[in-house]
């Protein structure tokens, strides 16, 4: 049955709340309104105001209270309304959510999930198209997840909620309406497993979240060129599947990492660094990075010139192959 990513996420929240009454969902406008993207739609009417509720407008307050509720014994799943609005909560996320379990020598665990609709491509105004995943991947203690398909949306969110560690869950908002034929509930490979979305021999495209789909489109387009591209979906940045990335590179000898975030000091750098560390002699060309320019995310009408697309990916493939 055809399910959108948005539906899969909503269903995952619903099923998790059904399965465990310690799961609570809260944030700005997630209750009565059901979230600005409707990901929490009907959860309040179904589970009541103590299980799904709206908060005052304060992201640090949302994350900080989630930490307290988790110490008490709940499993809070909180929403940051948009990527650009996670920053007010940065201290609670990095100084406490990430560090408190370690600080406590394991006596305190924080099974908190922070959901963040992220990335661009929807023609939004400023601060609504950010890709801050590298920040959180560099904050030890957090897990960082980003599904690229509806089935992963369901399964990874369920896993995130069940996970005893704090998880930052990046939802590719431009893919909320992406459809997949899948029966829910479903189970996909767990955290730390990259998945080959398309097998290929010429080169590997490495992506996560919104760019997985773009890479698949690039791979199809590449057939004309006679290129057989492999597409590897990282799915989780922390834990990072080094072995999976290396294995794919060994098959193809060429790798291109693709993300929306600016290239400088982005996740692509980590992937490239690891590949040359772990598969030096298999690299037939440098690992190339295709991502946003090193400028602030632009106005809606200019985002197409900023974001990676099929042409830029194929251009990078060509550069890699002709190296």
């Amino acid at each position, binding site marked *: 049955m055809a399910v959108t990513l948005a539906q899969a996420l909503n269903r995952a929240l619903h099923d998790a709340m059904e399965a465990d009454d310690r799961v609570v969902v809260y944030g700005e406008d997630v209750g009565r309104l059901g979230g600005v993207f409707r990901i929490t739609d009907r959860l309040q009417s179904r589970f009541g105001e103590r299980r799904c509720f709206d908060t005052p407008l304060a992201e640090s*307050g949302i994350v900080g209270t989630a930490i307290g509720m988790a110490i008490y014994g709940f499993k809070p799943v909180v929403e940051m309304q948009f990527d650009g609005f996670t920053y007010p909560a940065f201290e609670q996320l990095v100084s406490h959510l990430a560090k408190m379990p370690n600080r406590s020598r394991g006596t305190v665990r924080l099974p908190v999930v922070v959901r963040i609709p992220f990335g661009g491509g929807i*023609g939004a105004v400023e601060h609504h198209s950010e890709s801050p995943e590298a920040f959180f991947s560099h904050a030890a203690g957090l897990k960082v997840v980003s599904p690229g398909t509806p089935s992963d949306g369901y399964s990874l969110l369920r896993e995130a909620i069940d996970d005893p560690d704090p998880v930052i869950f990046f939802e590719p908002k431009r893919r909320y309406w992406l459809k997949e034929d899948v029966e829910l509930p479903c189970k996909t490979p767990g955290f730390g497993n990259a998945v080959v979305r398309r097998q290929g021999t010429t080169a590997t495209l490495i992506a996560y979240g919104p760019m997985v789909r773009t890479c698949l489109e690039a791979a199809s387009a590449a057939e004309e060129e006679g290129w057989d591209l492999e597409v590897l979906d990282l799915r989780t940045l922390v834990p990072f599947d080094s072995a999976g990335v290396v294995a794919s590179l060994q098959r193809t000898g060429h790798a291109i990492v693709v993300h929306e975030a600016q290239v400088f000091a982005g996740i692509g750098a980590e992937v490239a660094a690891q590949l040359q560390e772990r598969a030096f002699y298999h690299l037939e060309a440098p690992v190339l990075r295709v991502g946003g320019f090193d400028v602030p995310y632009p106005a809606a009408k200019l985002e197409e010139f900023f974001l990676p697309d099929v042409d830029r990916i194929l251009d990078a493939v060509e550069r890699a192959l002709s190296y």
Partner: protein
Amino acid sequence: MGSRVDANALLPPDKPVRLLDDSGTLHEVEGFPLDLKDEELRELYRFMVLSRRVDKQAINLQRQGQLGVYASLLGQEAAQVGSAFALEPRDWVFPSYRELGAALVRGVDPASILHLFRGTWLSDHDPHETHFGLLSIPIGTQALHATGFAMGAKFDDVDLVVMSYFGDGASSEGDPHEALNFAAVFEAPCVFVVQNNQYAISVPLISQTRAPTIAHKAVGYGMPGYRCDGNDVLGTYAVVRQAVERARRGEGPSLVEAVTYRMEAHTTADDPTRYRTDEELAMWKARDPIARFETFLESEGLLTADLRQEIDDEAQAHAKRLREEIYDAPHGDPLELFDHPYVEPPPSYAEQREFLRAELASNQEG
């Protein structure tokens, strides 16, 4: 160890100050004299009508797919025009994203603001020309910019007042709290105008704060808290004017709560039927800020048919110009992406700009 200030002097009155009641009748309110000349009263009316017309045009442009999104001020014309009108040209304003009305009063070209909502540019006006800051989308953050700007003016002994707008929802964020506190500690010439339009998207005031009123928060910073009927342009003007003059006299910042209502959806992307009732809407419609002021002006003989015609024509002209400027407006030059982030950009900019230039060139051929 006793308290240093008389708290009661800082608390707002029980009922918001209003000079015009719902029916448009003028009432004397002690301490808030109406000191406006006839042409000023007409100006207030003019700005409110223009605001509403431009707002309507923006909503239509959004419906026609010409704007990505738009945040309407419908119902808040008096709160915005009345407050902004209390400023002098040399003063500064740091707005949120809903202050189109205040922008008009400051002389900002509304087209520049619609270009933001269209996505032509992230912003398209020079704050130094009109002393109207860039629209600020991260909630409440602009309050700190206002405070800092006012601190600067104060350190230079420059006579200038800074006004910052934020919403009822914003009052929950940390930044406005820090802004109010810094302003008080540094005795900065600031006026913080909270447009309490009863909602933060879908979240009603009662879920936002349990304070007696938002104006009561002022006492926690040692500054006076004022409240006015934000749908009464005269009450709003009179109260804000006091706060502005207080700041100008060097007596420090204050907080003004303008009690009003957002008649439209939060933005064109929102569906308010999910969280508010027609009854509520009807109740506030009866308090329409423009209708009320019209009644008053007519009773005073200040609003002739000719004047009304004149203002409507001007409003139509505005709207027409906006349609022409915004409709199918071309996107900006993509290479401008690299022009503004830095005065002295890193070397990578040359590479990345060249990459984009070449790409654009080849797309033109192909």
